[in-house]
């Protein structure tokens, strides 16, 4: 922090730093670091570091998972997206929250019963294949880094917002350093406490300001009513609800409030603009809504299946004492994050009425900062102090958001490096102390790489980056886990083929759209204009990539049926039999004899 303060003092401030905002943000950082130090003395064994000694209670664990899950994308990105795209963007918060249902129904219980430190452990244990562990590790790191970049972007933009004049990369470096220190000190047990605290901070930070704000400027539904639908001739804005004029770049009311708006019809709209003949235009117009429906379904599949396949979330299930606790935890997580996700869209809706000027800017200066910007409006309404305090609270929430998600990712990626690569591949005979040391080094290495990557993504949109990570997870991990848990006939080759082909194709097609959008590849951009359907399928690949991955798994497994693990029945029993029967103990004993776990 000293370095930051010195840097700030040296920097000629272009605008005044709001002392309340700086105060609340600093408190969040200090408490986070303090809790990390406090728990550092209590985390001793390797188990404490990797899975928090497997003894985290349901309440703590549910708060911690929720704290880890609610990232910068949820806290800032969702509100910004709803403001920008209206109804279509509502699918994001809803599916972020409800995707957990799939996890609960099909994966949480069996995975916990199987009992392994990490997903690669599960991959190896289920198929008796060290090779498959390596493949799984690569994917953990891969999806992890994809998910880290938007958190870093959130860190950089929030700090730049709080301290005007501060360079974007300084925020990335400071936050990266703080969290890396925290994780390498306390490991999983350390961050469990911190993340649980950060969940409650985030809920406080998203609800309190909006309740105060709504009581002064009008409520959610009143501001929504101010937007007219296609049927209404005049907006039925209730008395006393003020609304600023929309700026030129803002979407029209009837498009914003209704389904199939600007987000899902963008590809076709661009094609229509470029169409030369009226016939072409008419044909594209006719396809607009069906394509838009397709986009919506593909987005839903990516978000729902992707949640169930995020490696940093899955590893938390191993911190439950048993399968029943794992299920109860998921139930509470759904309630905790569901309660949270009701609120970001409220910021988006009220923001559309009161801060339409944000539509004119892009990226971090645009709608992404509506959550931070909205409370300051109170300053102009005879509540200067209240406005500053509330804005300080939402800034603290934003801090908690990217810090907790990044620490969770750092733990799962460091575990992958220390436990899977170092402990299992490089030096299998290493002592627990050596592995602990490896964990700390791994955290530092991953932290540095994340910071470097984070400084490269300033131009990209937060929620877009997160969406990429979800689509890739949906096409790789979700089919792997789902099929491995429920189908006895899976072989290692089938699982690996499906996961790799599905995941890599999803990645490749997303990359193609990024190429033209961000790096301005004109030939590709022209191709998208000519083929809007292909563009939609590449931007949202889940609708074909998930079924493709599952089909490949089935086909290749059938072809290689001779290589089904010999003790598959026992493995399936461990995955599914009630823990009261004590089968896991037997399984572990059997394997100890073989020099396994």
């Amino acid at each position, binding site marked *: 922090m000293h370095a930051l303060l010195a840097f700030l003092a040296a920097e000629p401030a272009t605008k005044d730093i709001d002392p309340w905002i700086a105060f609340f943000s600093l408190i969040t950082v200090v408490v986070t670091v303090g809790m990390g130090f406090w728990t550092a003395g209590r985390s001793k064994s390797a188990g404490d570091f990797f899975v928090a000694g497997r003894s985290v209670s349901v309440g703590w664990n549910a708060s911690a998972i929720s704290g880890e899950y609610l990232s910068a994308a949820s806290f800032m990105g969702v509100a910004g997206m709803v403001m920008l795209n209206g109804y279509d963007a509502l699918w994001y918060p809803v599916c972020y929250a409800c995707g957990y249902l799939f996890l609960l129904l099909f994966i949480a219980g069996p995975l916990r019963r199987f009992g392994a430190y990490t997903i690669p452990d599960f991959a190896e244990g289920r198929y008796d294949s060290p090779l498959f562990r390596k493949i799984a590790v690569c994917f953990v790191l891969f999806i992890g880094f994809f998910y880290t970049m938007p958190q870093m972007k959130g860190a950089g933009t929030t700090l730049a917002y709080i301290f005007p004049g501060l360079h974007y990369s300084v925020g990335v470096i400071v936050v990266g350093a703080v969290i890396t220190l925290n994780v390498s000190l306390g490991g999983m047990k350390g961050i469990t406490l911190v993340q649980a605290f950060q969940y409650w901070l985030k809920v406080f930070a998203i609800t309190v300001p909006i309740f105060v704000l709504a009581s002064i400027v009008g409520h959610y539904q009143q501001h929504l009513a101010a937007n007219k639908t296609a049927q209404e001739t005049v907006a039925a804005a209730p008395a006393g609800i003020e609304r600023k004029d929309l700026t030129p770049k803002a979407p029209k009311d009837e498009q914003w409030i209704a389904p199939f708006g600007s987000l899902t019809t963008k590809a076709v709209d661009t094609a229509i603009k470029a169409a030369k003949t009226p016939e072409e235009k008419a044909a594209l117009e006719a396809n607009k809504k069906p394509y838009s429906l397709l986009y919506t379904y593909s987005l839903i599949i990516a978000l729902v299946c992707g949640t169930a396949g995020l490696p940093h979330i899955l590893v938390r299930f191993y911190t439950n004492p048993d399968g029943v606790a794992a299920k109860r935890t998921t139930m509470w997580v759904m309630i905790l994050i569901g309660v949270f996700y009701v609120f970001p869209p409220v910021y988006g809706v009220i923001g559309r009425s009161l801060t339409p000027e944000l539509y004119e800017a892009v990226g971090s200066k645009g709608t992404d900062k509506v959550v931070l910007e909205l409370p300051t409006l109170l300053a102009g309404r005879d509540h200067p102090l209240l406005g500053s305090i509330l804005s300080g609270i939402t800034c603290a929430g934003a801090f908690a958001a990217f810090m907790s998600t990044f620490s969770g990712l750092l733990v799962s990626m460091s575990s992958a490096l220390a436990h899977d690569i170092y402990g299992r591949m490089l030096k299998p005979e290493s002592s627990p102390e050596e592995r602990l040391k490896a964990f700390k080094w791994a955290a530092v290495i991953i932290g540095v790489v994340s910071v470097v990557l984070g400084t490269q993504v300033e131009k990209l949109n937060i929620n877009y980056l997160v969406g990429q990570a979800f689509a890739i997870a949906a096409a790789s991990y979700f089919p792997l886990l789902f099929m491995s848990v429920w189908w006895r006939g899976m072989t290692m080759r089938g699982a690996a083929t499906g996961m790799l082909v599905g995941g890599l194709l999803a990645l490749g097609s997303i990359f193609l759209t990024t190429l033209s959008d961000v790096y301005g590849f004109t030939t590709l951009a022209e191709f998208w204009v000519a083929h809007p359907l292909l563009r939609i399928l590449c931007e949202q690949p889940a609708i074909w990539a998930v079924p493709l991955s599952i089909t490949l798994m089935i086909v290749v497994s059938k072809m290689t049926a001779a290589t089904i693990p010999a003790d598959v029945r026992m493995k399936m029993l461990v995955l599914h039999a009630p823990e009261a*029967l004590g089968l896991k103990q037997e399984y572990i004993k059997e394997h100890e004899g073989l020099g396994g776990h």
Partner: protein
Amino acid sequence: MKEPHSSPDHIHSDAFLARLMRGQLKLSIACALCFVVALVALPLLNYLQPEFMAQRVFGFTLTWLILGVLFFPFVWIISFVFIQRSIALEDAEAQAAQDGLTK
């Protein structure tokens, strides 16, 4: 691989495993269907009945109210029912296995 002796043989039979998995999968799929039907139906209703879904309810449009507010409690209900049933199912399975042991 040798069968351990500490648990009864019928637990290690294919029939027991098949019954176990079928019971669990049936419960999971039934709950998933409720969820999937809602997820498929809402965009479809928006597509086919746009005017009906755009009518105002307490200031929200009907479809906004369903997706932005009511969807969350709906999913909580499904997960609550699933957890109750699944714990009951596990208890029954464990009980059945223990009974088999004493016979």
